[in-house]
C-alpha cells in the first residue's frame, strides 16, 4: 500500500508542494537562525580560541568575560610564576584604544600586548610578515579584516572602498606612531573591531597611563600537571581567578547568554519558525488528509485495516518531513557557504542537524497524529454518502 500512500500524497501537486515548502521553511529557520546564533556566540570567545598555547588564564577575580578587563599589578605575574606546577607564565595586555587614521578619523581597536621576549599569545595565522617583526621599532600586526575595512586608508574617489592597510603603512595609537609590520588572520570578535598586536611593553606605552595594566597572565602547566588542581592552587595562592581555556570560554559564553538579549531574540526566531512551519505544514497535511478522507473510507470499506492506514499516513509524513528537512538543511548549508567570507557569523555543528531534525520530526508527528486520529475514527460507511 506504500505506493498508493505516496501517490495519494503527491496527487495534488499544489498541496504536496505546500507541505514540503512549509517543512522546508521550518527546517531552514530552525537550522539557519541557531547557526547564526552559535556563530555569534562563538565570536564572544574567539580571542581565547585564537590564543592557543596557554593552558590557564589568570585574571582579576571579578572578571566576567574576556572583554571585561580588570587590570592587575605586574607583580601578580611573578607570584603566578612562583607556583609549583607552572611551566611558564607570560603577561598579556588587552584593551580598547583609539587609532587615528590617515583621514583624521578615529577607530577603536582591540590592542593586544604580547610578552616582549616570547611573543606568546600572538595571532594564529600570519598572512604577511612574521610574528618576530613585532620586535622592530613601533611594529604592530593588524588583522586582515581590520586592515581591509575599518583601518583602511580613505578611497581617493568619494564613496569608494577604503584602500587596505599594508605592511609599511603607519597609524597612530593614542598619539603614538605604529608601523604595520605584518597582517594576520584572526577569528572575528563579537564586536568586529580591528585587532592590533604589539609587544607588552609597547602596548603599555600606547595605553593611557594607569597604575595597573596587566590584563591576563597566560600560564602553561608542566607536563602531566592536573589543570584543575593547578587552577585551584593559583586561586588559593594569589586570590586571583584562574580558568582553563575551556572554563574561560564557558564563562564568557555564559555571560553573553545571561546578560544579552541575543539568546532570547534568536530563540524567538527559532520558535516562530517552528510555529509557522508547524502551522503551514501541519494544516496543509491535515487538510490533504481531510480531502482524501473519502479515499481512506473507500480503502477502509474494502478491508484495509487502521494499522495499514496509519502506516500510510506515517509514510506520507516521513516522506514530506525528509524532503522538507533535507531542503531546509541544504539551503542553510548553501547560505553558510555563500556567506563564508562575509562579516556574518555562522557555525554549523552536527548537533544542529539533530536539533532541527527533532523540530521537523515534532511537526510531522503532530501533523500525522491529527490525520491519523481523523482516519482511525472514520466510519467506512462514509463511502455511501453522496
Amino acid at each position, binding site marked *: *500500500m506504500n*505506493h*498508493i500512500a505516496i*501517490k*495519494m500524497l*503527491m*496527487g*495534488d501537486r499544489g498541496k504536496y508542494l505546500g507541505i514540503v515548502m512549509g517543512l522546508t521553511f521550518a527546517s531552514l529557520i530552525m537550522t539557519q537562525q541557531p547557526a547564526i546564533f552559535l556563530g555569534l556566540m562563538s565570536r564572544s570567545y574567539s580571542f581565547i580560541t585564537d590564543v592557543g598555547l596557554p593552558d590557564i588564564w589568570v585574571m582579576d577575580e571579578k572578571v566576567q568575560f574576556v572583554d571585561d578587563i580588570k587590570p592587575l599589578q605586574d607583580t601578580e605575574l611573578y607570584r603566578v610564576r612562583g607556583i609549583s606546577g607552572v611551566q611558564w607564565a607570560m603577561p598579556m595586555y588587552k584593551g580598547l584604544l583609539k587609532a587615528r587614521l590617515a583621514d583624521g578619523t578615529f577607530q577603536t581597536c582591540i590592542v593586544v600586548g604580547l610578552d616582549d621576549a616570547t611573543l606568546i599569545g600572538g595571532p594564529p595565522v600570519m598572512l604577511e610578515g612574521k610574528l618576530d617583526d613585532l620586535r622592530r621599532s613601533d611594529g604592530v600586526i593588524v588583522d586582515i579584516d581590520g586592515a581591509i575595512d575599518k583601518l583602511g586608508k580613505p578611497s581617493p574617489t568619494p564613496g569608494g572602498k577604503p584602500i587596505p592597510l599594508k605592511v609599511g603603512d603607519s597609524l597612530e595609537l593614542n598619539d603614538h606612531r605604529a608601523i604595520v609590520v605584518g597582517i594576520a588572520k584572526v577569528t572575528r570578535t563579537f564586536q568586529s573591531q580591528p585587532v592590533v598586536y604589539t609587544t607588552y611593553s609597547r602596548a603599555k606605552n600606547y595605553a593611557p597611563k594607569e597604575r595597573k595594566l596587566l590584563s591576563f597572565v597566560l600560564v602553561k602547566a608542566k607536563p602531566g600537571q592536573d589543570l584543575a588542581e593547578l587552577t585551584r592552587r593559583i586561586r588559593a595562592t594569589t586570590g586571583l581567578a584562574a580558568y582553563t581555556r575551556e572554563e574561560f570560554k564557558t564563562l564568557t559564553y555564559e555571560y553573553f547568554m545571561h546578560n544579552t538579549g541575543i539568546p532570547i531574540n534568536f530563540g524567538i526566531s527559532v520558535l516562530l519558525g517552528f510555529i509557522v512551519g508547524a502551522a503551514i505544514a501541519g494544516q496543509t497535511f491535515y487538510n490533504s488528509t481531510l480531502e482524501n478522507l*473519502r*479515499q481512506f473510507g*473507500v*480503502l*477502509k*470499506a*474494502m*478491508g*484495509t*485495516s487502521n494499522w495499514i492506514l496509519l502506516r500510510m499516513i506515517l509514510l506520507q509524513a516521513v516522506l514530506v518531513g525528509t524532503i522538507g528537512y533535507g531542503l531546509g538543511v541544504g539551503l542553510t548549508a548553501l547560505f553558510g557557504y555563500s556567506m563564508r567570507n562575509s562579516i556574518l557569523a555562522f557555525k554549523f555543528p552536527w548537533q544542529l542537524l539533530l536539533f532541527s531534525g527533532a523540530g521537523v520530526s515534532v511537526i510531522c508527528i503532530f501533523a500525522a497524529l491529527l490525520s491519523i486520529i481523523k482516519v482511525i475514527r472514520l*466510519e*467506512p*460507511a462514509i*463511502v*455511501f*454518502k*453522496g
Partner: protein
Amino acid sequence: MDSSSLAVRCQNVVKIYDTGGQKVTALNGVNLDIAMGELMMLVGPSGCGKTTLISVIAGILDQDSGHCEVFGEDLLNMSGQSKLNFRARNIGFVFQAFNLLPALNAAENVSIPLIINGMKRSDAERKATAVLEQVGLGTRVTALPSELSGGQQQRVAIARALVHSPRLIVCDEPTSSLDHETGHNVMTLLKEVALHKDRALVIVTHDARIFNFADRIAEMDDGHIINVKGAKNDASL
C-alpha cells in the same frame, strides 16, 4: 429458500442513528433474503434506509439489533480484523460517485482489492489489466480517472469490484451519475460480467430505467421492506 443457497439473510434488523440527541430509526425490523446468483434491487424514497441496509449487509456498519448473515457468517459477532478480512475477500463495492483514487491510474485503482488481499503489486496490476479488458477498457489501463468519461470511470469501478472475485457485490446508485445509454450499458455489463451463480448483486437505486435488470426488487419505506417482487412489475414502482 434453502439457507445454503442464500447470500444474505437479514432478520429483524434494526438500526437507529443518534443525531445530536435525536433518535432516527433508519432500519426498523428489516427481513430480507438474497439468493446466490440473484440481482436484488433496493428501491424507495430518500431516507427510507436503503443505504443503511447495504452498509449493514456489506459489513461496514453494525446494526443495533437483529441478525444479518452474509454467506452464513454473522458479521456483528466477528472481531474487527475478521470482519476486515471478510470484507476484503467477499465484498465488492460500486459507488454512485465512483470513488476512484484520483492519483492512481485505472489499473492501479482496480488492483487495490488484490493488494489489500496480499497480492504482489506487479501481479495485481497484471490481473487488473485483464479485468479492465473484460469491461472494455483494455486501451485505457494507464489513464487517470480525470482522463476518463463518467461511464468509463464506472466501468473501472466495476472492474475494481470484480477483480478479487468477491461473492457479493453491493452497488450504490451505480447509474445515477450517468446518462440513460451509459447507465444501460453499465447495467448490461454488471449483469453479464458480475452476475453468476456463485455471486449475488445488491443494487440500491432510484433509477426506474434499470429496474428491468433486477431479478427481484425490494421496496423500502420508513425503515421497512414493504414489498418484494419480481422485476416484471417494475413499472408500478
